[in-house]
């Protein structure tokens, strides 16, 4: 008898990319273990506080060369800290080609194909369509400004229980009211109900060939200290017949790159083609008098807006620039989004600088009249990961701060796309001087909460690490199902697409599991209902 722990399926990461296949495989009958790097927090653990040591337990800020990335670090992954926008990617995205004219997505992937899986995810989370009564003031202002400038604007669908939501605007800290539909409320409890074991504070370091007959891969992990994530408290190995890597678009390539020798080589595209989803943040400071006179807005007597911190962080978005007839590279989503005050250093009092001193102080005094905006453009997948550190996905400076060896230098094409989106926002905000459009930083560097594409699917082995089934090329039974598998930026927030792709991939993985002798049924299992996790305290 082997002394090494074994399981049918090992899932690395518990965000949407891991939780969904964990449920599907467990529900089909497989023995599933989920290893999560971060801690396990429950609804009552999420604090409304910006004190260091609270939200920093579950959010990582990863600084790389040319891009900074916000990501979740807890059971449930980024679904715990995200802003819950649940949008389907527009149809043109799936037909995108790279600068050399090569098709990027698998040819068989279309919006129509994905709609089936979007349906499943929307039903499961579930997703709610906001009415205008649900859109907070900031989203209302953006909608009114778009309308005034001759544009349409839509309420954004959200993975939020709108009846339970208190509009507190603390989504980055995790939802204290259990209203945000994170993986903690649906797929993970359903996976657990079918026997899946969820283990927090387990950081996977290496994947090697298994030594136990009948098993394919040995996954080595270290145990992470609960209070100081830089410290290790133990280590172990689990062997599995199927391994699903869903550690996020920063950690997944690091784990695989570190395993290149033990796995006998990797596809060239592992750790290449990283995309920050084309994210570009800018802001406006609004003229309250003009909002009242021009846009006819009034939220209470004598006050037009002054409501930047109120409500759900994402309210409205114009789809006008997502027209598939627009030129490739000139298509983007423009979305109203709130950023917590931890980012206030980034706002600039005038174009091109002045982010500290008296001018910035005057801008700060008008904080409640700010409006922050996110453009999501077609970028060029310019990110490349360097050699991974000895352990982990990055150099952890402190519990929430990390340095990555990722390099992201946007091409002129991407920078032009950002410039176009900037001009579009400016034309809306500054029409009749309802506000002033300002940089969130004068640099061309990217800030994103949407890391993608570092281990992407595709038809062409030269530019994709995974087959359309999400199996890593040349490595049977090793799958990638998180944001790193998404081939391109999406022009919308990516969580729903990551989840839909994970649902689709799960069908392939269940079939593979059946083929290699794991006792699973291959019928589509029903979507899980809502529930709550059993925390093994």
């Amino acid at each position, binding site marked *: 008898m082997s002394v090494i722990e074994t399981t049918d399926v090992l899932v690395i990461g518990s965000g949407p990319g891991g939780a969904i296949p964990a449920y599907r495989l467990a529900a089909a009958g497989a023995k599933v273990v989920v290893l999560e790097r971060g801690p396990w927090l429950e609804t009552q653990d999420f604090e409304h506080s910006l004190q260091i040591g609270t939200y920093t337990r579950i959010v990582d800020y990863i600084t790389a*060369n040319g891009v*900074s990335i916000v990501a979740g670090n807890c059971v449930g992954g980024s679904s715990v800290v995200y802003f819950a926008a649940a949008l389907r990617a527009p149809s043109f995205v799936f037909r995108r080609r790279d600068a050399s004219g090569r098709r990027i997505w698998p040819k068989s992937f279309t919006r129509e194909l994905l709609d089936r899986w979007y349906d499943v995810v929307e039903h499961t989370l579930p997703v709610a369509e906001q009415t205008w009564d649900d*859109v907070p003031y900031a989203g209302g202002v953006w909608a009114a400004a778009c309308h005034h400038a001759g544009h349409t604007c839509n309420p954004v669908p959200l993975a939020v229980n709108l009846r339970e939501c208190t*509009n507190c605007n603390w989504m980055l800290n995790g939802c204290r009211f259990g209203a945000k539909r994170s993986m903690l409320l649906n797929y993970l409890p359903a996976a657990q109900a079918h026997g899946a074991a969820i283990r927090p504070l387990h950081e996977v370091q290496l994947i090697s060939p298994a030594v136990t007959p009948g098993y394919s891969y040995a996954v080595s992990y270290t145990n992470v200290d609960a209070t100081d994530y830089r410290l290790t408290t133990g280590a172990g190995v689990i062997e599995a017949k199927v391994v699903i890597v869903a550690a996020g678009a920063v950690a997944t390539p690091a784990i695989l790159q570190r395993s290149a020798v033990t796995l006998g080589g990797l596809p060239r595209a592992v750790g290449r083609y990283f995309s920050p989803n084309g994210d570009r943040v800018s802001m406006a400071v609004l003229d309250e008098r003009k909002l009242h006179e021009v846009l006819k807005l009034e939220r*209470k007597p004598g006050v037009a807006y002054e409501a930047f911190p109120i409500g759900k962080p994402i309210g409205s978005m114009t789809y006008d620039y997502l027209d598939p007839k627009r030129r490739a590279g000139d298509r983007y989503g423009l979305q109203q989004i709130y950023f917590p005050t931890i980012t206030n250093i980034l706002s600039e009092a005038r174009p091109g600088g002045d982010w500290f001193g008296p001018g910035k102080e005057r801008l*700060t005094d008008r904080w*409640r009249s700010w409006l922050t905006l996110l453009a999501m453009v077609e970028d060029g997948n310019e990110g490349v990961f360097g050699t991974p550190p000895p352990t982990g996905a990055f150099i952890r*400076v402190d519990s929430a701060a990390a340095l990555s060896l990722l390099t992201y230098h946007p091409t002129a094409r991407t920078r032009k796309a950002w410039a176009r989106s900037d001009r579009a926002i400016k034309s809306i905000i500054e029409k009749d001087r309802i506000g002033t459009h300002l940089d969130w930083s004068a*640099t061309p560097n990217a800030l994103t909460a949407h890391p993608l594409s570092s281990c992407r699917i595709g038809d062409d082995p030269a530019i994709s690490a995974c087959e359309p089934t999400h199996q890593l090329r040349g490595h049977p039974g090793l799958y990638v199902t998180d944001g790193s598998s998404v081939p391109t930026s999406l022009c919308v927030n990516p969580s729903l697409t990551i989840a839909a792709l994970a649902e689709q991939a799960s069908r392939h993985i269940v079939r593979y599991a059946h083929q290699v002798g794991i006792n699973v049924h291959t019928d589509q299992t029903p979507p899980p209902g809502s529930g709550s996790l059993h925390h093994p305290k």
Partner: protein
Amino acid sequence: MSLTRRQLLWLASIGATGMSLVDAVTPNSDAADARPSAGPDGLTSDPLTMTIEAFADTLIPGHKRYAADYAVAGVSHQAGAVQAGALPFMRFGPVGVAPALPAFVAALDAAAVAYIASHQTSVDPTLPPFVGLSYHHRKAMLDHLLNGKKESGDEQLFWFAFAGLVFLAYHTAGYLPTAKAVRDGHPGLKAIGFPKPDRDGLWRFPDFSYRRKLARRHPHTTPGGNPR
């Protein structure tokens, strides 16, 4: 590597970045020899405190706290980063930067000495060099350190890390539970108009929406509210 304050924001928020860089900094004895300033009720400020406060006050200016307040330049009529707790934030344990503060001050003073020499400006020799500069010169010097195109790499990372701490002290009161900070009138949160929590320390906004249609939806919107 190329560094911007956006990249460095979070590193700054934690501050530990400075820890790996402090060894490269040569301590400057000028600050240690400077006289302490006298505050009300016999309160004294040591050179390290004064220098950190002057740095914070340059980024987010405030009013002078007392007549002989050399650290605060007094170019603002409202409370600034010093009053908002920049120093207690930097000394807050979970931030992890407290051991690096002497080296930070030494580096800032060294940069100030170089600035004074190159700009042929005169300062009060009894004050720490950076504290001795006027606000105009303090800001010009930090502009060079934080925005100068010639400045790059680890050195700029070092300055941005500490600038980030100042902003977090003012804009988040990150050394305090936020509900308590708001209730107690934390100057930064008060200045920006951070909303007040409910009695249980949690935020809820029953009134959050204009509750009316403010734009036409895109004509090709799907029944679920998505783009096509």
